[in-house]
């Protein structure tokens, strides 16, 4: 039997178990006759196994929410805007640049009322929603403690709405600062890891204010006031998703009052 000589490629193929059964037997026979080559192959196989073991845990980790493919597809779909919208944004930017700092107050007055609430919710969404380490201060397990804490600091009884019926899980909350004083911030997420926040604080004027949409570069939302308590929702989701949630929250909080 004339055999092709064993080459370095066969040795590597043997280590990686990529040889045909016939060739594998030939390499085995060769290694049996060459103890030095056999020792080298054994060391290479041990290295192969060590490397696989060292990196295996990474692939076993749960995939982080930001690598959720459905979410990436969704964000991309929303980011593709019609050309006229992009052009309109460009014109606004030019106008903004020409107006300069002096007109800043006139163009974007310091918000008050519902607008201030909406701004606070958007800002806090932008800061806390992308946080992977500690998005909330107090976890959802302490729902009563959360309600008690907010009620004490806002100086009126507030509830923590349950949105599990709408597919959103309460992650927890934290107390945040606003120019008008402390506010309670709740964070919720869905099964895809999409998060939104709800901010609540007492309004300076008593009574109700109708629900109004708001939007920034990073979030959409809705804000309203009910019996002197202001609420604002902010999240990256489409207004069509957030609006029914805002309505659900308004119904839930109206009941608990």
């Amino acid at each position, binding site marked *: 039997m004339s055999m092709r000589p064993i080459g*370095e*490629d066969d*040795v*590597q193929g043997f*280590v*990686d178990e*990529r040889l045909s059964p016939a060739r594998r037997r030939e390499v085995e026979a060769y290694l049996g006759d060459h103890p*030095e*080559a056999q*020792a*080298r192959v054994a*060391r*290479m196989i041990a*290295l*192969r196994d*060590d*490397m*696989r073991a*060292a*990196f295996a845990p*990474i*692939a*076993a*980790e749960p*995939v*982080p929410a*930001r*690598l959720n*493919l*459905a979410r*990436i*597809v969704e964000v*991309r779909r929303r980011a593709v805007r019609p050309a006229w919208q992009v052009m309109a944004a460009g014109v606004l930017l030019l106008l903004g640049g020409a107006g300069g700092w002096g007109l800043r107050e006139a163009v974007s007055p310091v918000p008050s009322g519902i607008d201030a609430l909406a701004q606070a919710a958007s800002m806090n969404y932008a800061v806390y929603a992308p946080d992977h380490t500690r998005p909330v201060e107090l976890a959802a397990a302490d729902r009563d403690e959360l309600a008690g804490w907010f009620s004490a600091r806002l100086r009126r009884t507030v509830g923590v709405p349950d949105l599990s019926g709408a597919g959103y899980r309460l992650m927890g909350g934290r107390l945040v600062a606003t120019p008008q004083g402390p506010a309670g911030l709740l964070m919720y997420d869905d099964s895809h890891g999409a998060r939104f926040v709800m901010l609540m604080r007492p309004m300076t004027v008593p009574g109700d204010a109708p629900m109004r949409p708001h939007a920034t570069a990073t979030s959409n939302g809705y804000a309203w006031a009910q019996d002197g308590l202001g609420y604002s929702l902010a999240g990256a989701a489409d207004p069509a998703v957030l609006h029914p949630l805002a309505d659900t929250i308004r119904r839930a909080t109206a009941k608990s009052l």
Partner: protein
Amino acid sequence: MTDMMRLIEPLIPALRRYARALLRNPTDADDLVQDCLERAVGRWHQRRPDGDARTWLFAIVHNLAVTQLRQRARRGAHLPIEDTAEVSLAVAPTQESGLRHRDLMSALDALPEEQRSVLLLVTVEGLSYAETAEILAIPAGTVMSRLSRARDRMILLMDGTEATAPAKRALLRRVK
């Protein structure tokens, strides 16, 4: 769309692993995979219809990682040994396995980039030699020679000796 989801989604854990093995910093690696997925979603219709989704995605991750590694090298920053991942890995179940793991990682870091990627794709990701050649856009013969050199170099670095003489050395001795 669902076709894309079905083909890409199962590959994400392996893409994260390859990115982390190359960059060593978990946050940088996930940033890179996110970037890769966004590109893949955006260019799904541009890929060769007969092409394999796995080699296509690994090629994207690889090219992004190499670009980033070159930027790092230019800035002269970032010793992987200071990474948080490295610190947590150092607290291994037993001191001995921790040390072995550390030796393995520093030997891997010491490999030239082109040898490291071949070794990782073949050994850890279990890709065929042909797939590895396609991902790295190199001839199959180059995959084989880099693989052989990578293994000898790793063993030399970890054990301090060559894994008993390869055939080449025996020949050299004879010439002497």
